[in-house]
């Protein structure tokens, strides 16, 4: 049987929304290399889009002159995507997910990014340090988001 590849890549880019599509292409390709099918690679890509966009909009307040590093680490068990920045930190305690039933009734725009990340990845953690990091993991044998 063909052995699944392992390894890590990283790319650093300016905090400008023009680079978001490039970032999700990297994440999607990493998911494919890690052995995930197209449907799961798309979920990894969307979660990465939301994570990078959150950093640009909230951690860096929309400034496009900062840096973001995207890391993708493939292990025998999982793919971990890390979005690293030096802007305002978000902690796990800060994360408030919407009640989707109420959200849809209220027809209120916005606030879905973190929900998408949590739905499409198996684990999402916000790490605070010298550099801050949104760390999202997809396990090879688990897909809780359906589809």
């Amino acid at each position, binding site marked *: 049987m063909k052995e699944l590849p392992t390894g890590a890549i990283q790319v650093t880019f300016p905090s400008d929304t023009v680079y978001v599509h490039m970032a999700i292409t990297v994440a999607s390709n990493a998911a494919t290399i890690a052995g995930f099918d197209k449907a799961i690679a*798309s979920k990894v890509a969307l979660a990465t889009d939301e994570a990078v966009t959150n950093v640009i909009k909230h951690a860096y307040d929309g400034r496009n002159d900062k840096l973001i590093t995207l890391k993708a680490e493939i292990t025998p068990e999982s793919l971990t995507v890390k979005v690293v920045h030096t802007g305002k930190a978000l902690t796990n305690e800060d994360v408030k997910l919407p009640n989707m039933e109420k959200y849809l009734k209220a027809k209120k725009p916005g606030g879905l990014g973190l929900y998408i990340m949590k739905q499409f990845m198996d684990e999402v953690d916000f790490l605070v340090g010298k550099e801050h990091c949104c760390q999202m993991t997809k396990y090879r044998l688990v897909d809780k988001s359906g589809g």
Partner: protein
Amino acid sequence: MAAGLEVHATQKDEAKVLYINGFINAHTVQDFERSIQSVLSEQNYRILINCKDLEYINSSGLGVLMGVIEEIQDNNGFLYLSDMNDTVFNIFDTLGFTHLFKVFDAEVEALDSLKGVSDSAVNED
């Protein structure tokens, strides 16, 4: 239009049909919103978005749809979607947006569903 998104609108039967080509994310969402607002400003409240060439949509784009649905419903209109790829359908389905927006497999099915529709509201709450 910014690189990454093109929107083309045309009138077909009862609906203004928007053809979306590319992806809707934080970089392109303003163009998407402008296109929708342009249609609404002409008092077209019967809108079908054909997603055949929509690569993906993120939460910014979904926010635009949420932001206009009430105005459309208040004007007895509808916002239908069709021809979604698996990626786009999956995000709508996961978030429950398929309960708020009527989704058709194909544009022709959406247009067929409108035949004989009166001026009364056709959106489903």
